[in-house]
């Protein structure tokens, strides 16, 4: 046994070849996180270009052709290449550590998923280098607009191929996650003792498995239509323009929860640590995750209320119902803080920012689930505001919370607290200055995906404010990058458990060895590291 470990301990090397051939879940996790953050940087620059174009009406910062590519690539990259894959990367790094496993169930499959994700993203962006430019039909690529008759460019085909590759990679990863959590838990780590983040990833994986095949089918049909003379979405030949929307949103709405459930998990890990209390209502939070996952499979056509071709009351009611389990989570987080001993380190700041922003996104979500409101709000800037409050104010803030929280575990050093608070406040203020006015733009009648707007009325003022806010957010991101640079020179060791946290990843060294654990503490509750720190307490006590 000693020799076996010695052989393993010699393995980790830092050269390039060891990274591209790695099947270690921690390295794959870091590759995933880095790649998705690079895509985030690119998509963020595209967003700045969009906001610059919209700073005043009839602006000519970019042309109309470029503008359509900008918002298509921005949406595609943020959704397919950043918010969802970041969660996959985080789970890659964390899941085996949190359940006390040495690696994922299928390490090579895991690495394959990562490389497919990387290459798929590059294929999508490769469209920008073609003659007619990248895809320009929005991230939703509605047929018949995306059909060959209208969108003749190669960029649209590359978009289809790229998104297809990414979606297959995502499905493979979801199978890997579910198997890992079901089968590879450490002795004593029963399902009802795994951290909430692991539960949320099980729910997310289930959702991916249920929803992504519909996207793959949709893309295949469009690909056949464009390249092999199919007519799936062409009404002139008996196809249906609505079919694209049904298949797309059957995937697309669950995808929203794929991009939010992992971050509910992140928040559920961070709030207890900085409140010095266990998560309140563990079982309730887990059941709520599955209620959200289940219900979200029956709400897809709330994106189609204005088609006049779907059963509005069914989809409206199902969408309203999702507010209930989401509310349960909110109340559980508040109850976790209630009576605690709350401190405001940077991860907690971002988690609280999540609570504030996401609540607004959730409330506007209930509003637009009401068809008579959606008739006005749909495809307007109100939708843009709503979805950015969910994915930007929600997921993005949880992403920063996760980066600050798990950075010491990944790299063995902390990010600076002072700079962290700066980037939090810049991002929080910048975010709200950017996206709060968009609600009013939409209600005033500004459609989305436009490169110019009415020069009279309040729209020019609101747009100028939003553009200023977006620059503030950019500064917040730059401060974060600076934080990464300066903390890289920090040689202070952080120890195994710098936050006095609860879950198993804090029981091993920072960063963990290739085989994850030298020794595991006894696992007798969902907080093995807390139990080890407080041997005087009975792990099964509920008070």
């Amino acid at each position, binding site marked *: 046994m000693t020799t076996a470990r010695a052989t393993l301990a010699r393995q980790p090397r830092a050269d390039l070849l060891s990274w591209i051939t790695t099947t270690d879940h921690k390295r794959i996790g870091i590759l995933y996180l880095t790649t998705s953050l690079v895509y985030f940087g690119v998509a963020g620059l595209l967003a700045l270009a969009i906001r610059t174009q919209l700073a005043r009406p009839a602006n000519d910062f970019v042309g109309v*052709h470029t503008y*359509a590519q900008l918002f298509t690539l921005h949406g595609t990259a943020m959704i397919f290449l950043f918010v969802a894959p970041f969660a996959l990367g985080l789970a890659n790094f964390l899941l085996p550590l949190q359940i006390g496993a040495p690696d994922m169930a299928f390490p090579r499959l895991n690495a394959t998923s990562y490389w497919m994700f990387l290459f798929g993203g590059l294929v999508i962006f490769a469209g920008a280098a073609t003659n007619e430019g990248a895809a320009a039909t929005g991230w939703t690529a*509605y047929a*018949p*607009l995306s059909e060959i008759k209208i969108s003749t460019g190669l960029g649209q085909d590359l978009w289809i191929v790229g998104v297809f590759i990414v979606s297959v990679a995502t499905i493979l990863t979801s199978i890997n996650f579910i198997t890992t959590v079901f089968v590879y838990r450490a002795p004593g780590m029963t399902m009802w003792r795994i951290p909430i983040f692991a539960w949320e990833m099980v729910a997310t994986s289930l959702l991916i498995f249920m929803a992504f095949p519909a996207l793959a089918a949709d893309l295949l049909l469009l690909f056949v239509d464009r390249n092999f003379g199919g007519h799936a979405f062409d*009404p002139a030949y008996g196809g*249906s*323009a*609505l079919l694209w929307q049904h298949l797309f949103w059957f995937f697309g709405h669950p995808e929203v929860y794929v991009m939010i459930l992992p971050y509910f998990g992140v928040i559920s890990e961070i709030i207890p640590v900085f409140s*010095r*209390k*266990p998560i*309140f*209502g*563990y*079982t*309730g939070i887990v059941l709520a995750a599955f209620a959200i996952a289940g219900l979200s499979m029956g709400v897809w056509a709330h994106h189609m209320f*204005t088609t*006049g*071709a779907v059963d509005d*009351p069914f989809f*409206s009611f199902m969408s*309203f119902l999702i*507010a*209930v389990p989401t*509310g*349960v989570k909110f*109340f559980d987080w*508040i*109850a976790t*803080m209630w*009576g*605690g*001993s*709350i*401190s405001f380190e940077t991860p907690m700041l971002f988690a*609280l920012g999540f609570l504030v922003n996401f*609540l607004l996104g959730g*409330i506007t979500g*209930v*509003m637009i689930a*009401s*068809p*008579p*409101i959606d*008739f*006005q709000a*749909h*495809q*307007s800037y109100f939708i843009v505001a709503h979805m950015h409050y969910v994915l930007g104010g929600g997921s993005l803030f949880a992403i920063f919370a996760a980066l600050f929280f798990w950075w010491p575990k990944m790299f063995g050093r902390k990010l600076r607290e002072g700079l962290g608070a700066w980037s939090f406040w810049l991002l929080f203020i910048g975010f709200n200055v950017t996206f709060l006015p968009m609600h*009013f733009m939409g*209600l005033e*009648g500004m*459609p989305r*995906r436009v490169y*110019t707007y009415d020069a009279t009325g309040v729209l020019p003022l609101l747009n100028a404010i939003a553009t200023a806010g977006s620059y503030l957010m950019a500064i917040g991101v730059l401060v974060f990058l600076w934080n990464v640079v300066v903390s890289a020179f920090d040689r202070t060791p952080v120890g195994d458990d710098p936050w006095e946290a609860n879950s198993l990843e804090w029981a091993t060294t920072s960063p963990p060895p290739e085989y994850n654990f030298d020794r595991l503490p006894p696992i007798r509750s969902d907080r093995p590291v807390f139990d080890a720190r407080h041997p005087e*307490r009975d792990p099964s*006590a*509920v*008070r």
Partner: protein
Amino acid sequence: MGRSWWPQPVTTQASLMASNWLLFLCAGAVVALIIWGLVAFALLRWRRKRGAATTLPAQLRTNIALEITWTLVPLVLVCILFIYTYRAEAGVEALVPYPDVTVAVNAYRWGWSFGYRGGPTVQGSFSDVPQLVLPRNETTRIILTSSDVNHAFWVPAFLFKRDAIPGRITVFDLRPEKDGTYVGHCAEFCGYAHALMGFSVKVVPPADYARWLKSGPS
């Protein structure tokens, strides 16, 4: 910005949608204030004070009664909201048996054509924005379709939009109640000139409308 942040409703249908919006706005504001208030209270009341003795707070994990309450109360709330939504939507989508005016609207890249039953067809592209003329206090039936890709017929002042989908015909009624000229947009991204694909709606007294229909568009 209008009252409660919506444009002032100018059709019978829009009034239904405006009161539905007001209900959701109030409900949303109450929920937001309660939850933000609870968060703020918890943060102020239980923030860790500098230099305080580091005793572990009570490790409370669950309270079944509380958890059932905060599941059931929102459930009842959304059911009530659903009932109001259902009623409002039924009113908005109701079709009168005999509309006073029928207009066939066709959307295309990038313009609109308005074909009046027993009258002219008005057409215009984004460089020459067409006008839809409607009589006040009479019900107009719109028969909407598209001849190429998805578009959407949106008049923000009517608080209403409906998708124009190729191969499908969608029908709805509008009953304007105030004279005036209102801006209309295409609301579904349909290609490069989408942002310019506008139209205008002019609501006139019924007598003027009859005269206009007879003399033809100028």
